[in-house]
């Protein structure tokens, strides 16, 4: 009898351990691209998942980080100023990854989206904020391109982090995506 009790206790311990390591109903996304179409896809998936009751975290890095800029006047050194000059300031400045055709394609796509009732990126960002989608921004890409927190979008659940934070979040997520 004592043996059986011991075994049950052992099993219970193992079940507890397994439960701890189970992935949660959570989606972790890396948004690497800064193209209009890919960022739209990322936000559609994020807001859709949030509506399905899934916890969502988005990690923006490299061109994705640059896509989250807004217009701001900040004193910068030469290389950061050059980067700042070439990178977009705001969602409105993003371009399609394909068929941009010197801006014509992007313009056409935006027109079509409006006509078909697809939300604009600014509206999607608002919905993400309302649905508690978390945004993490890669500290290193900020540093590399000389961007400062003051020039990033205003967003309630926004944090700066490194790769370990993403990996920890991804570890407990059932779904991970790279966009």
């Amino acid at each position, binding site marked *: 009898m004592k043996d059986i009790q011991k075994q049950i206790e052992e099993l219970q311990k193992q079940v507890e351990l397994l439960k701890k390591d189970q992935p949660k109903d959570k989606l972790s996304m890396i948004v690497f691209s800064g193209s209009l179409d890919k960022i739209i896809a990322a936000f559609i998936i994020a807001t859709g998942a*949030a509506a399905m009751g899934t916890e969502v975290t988005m990690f923006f890095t490299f061109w994705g980080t640059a896509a989250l800029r807004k217009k701001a006047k900040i004193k910068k050194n030469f290389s950061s100023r050059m980067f700042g000059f070439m990178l977009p300031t705001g969602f409105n400045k993003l371009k399609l990854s394909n068929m941009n055709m010197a801006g014509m394609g992007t313009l056409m796509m935006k027109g079509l989206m409006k006509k078909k009732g697809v939300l604009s990126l600014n509206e999607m960002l608002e919905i993400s904020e309302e649905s508690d989608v978390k945004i993490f921004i890669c500290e290193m890409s900020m540093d590399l391109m000389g961007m400062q927190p003051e020039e990033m979008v205003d967003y309630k659940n926004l944090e700066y982090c490194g790769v370990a934070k993403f990996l920890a979040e991804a570890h407990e997520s059932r779904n991970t995506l790279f966009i």
Partner: protein
Amino acid sequence: MQVDQSLDCKGLSCPMPIIKLAKTVKKMNSGEVLEMIGTDPGSKTDVPAWCGKTGNILLEQTEDGGAFKFYIKKK
């Protein structure tokens, strides 16, 4: 069928119908029925998928000339 609330998603595109659906159902009481109307063809598969994932019950789904109607019971 007794309908407690209705939601008009006509003209809205993915993912708005699902976002609105989630928001509306959140405010309803358990057992109440929502009638949802939309024109997004994606919602034909999206609404059943949403119900399956969230545990709410899709009672009926109809299609009438490009308009889709769903009856959803909150769990």
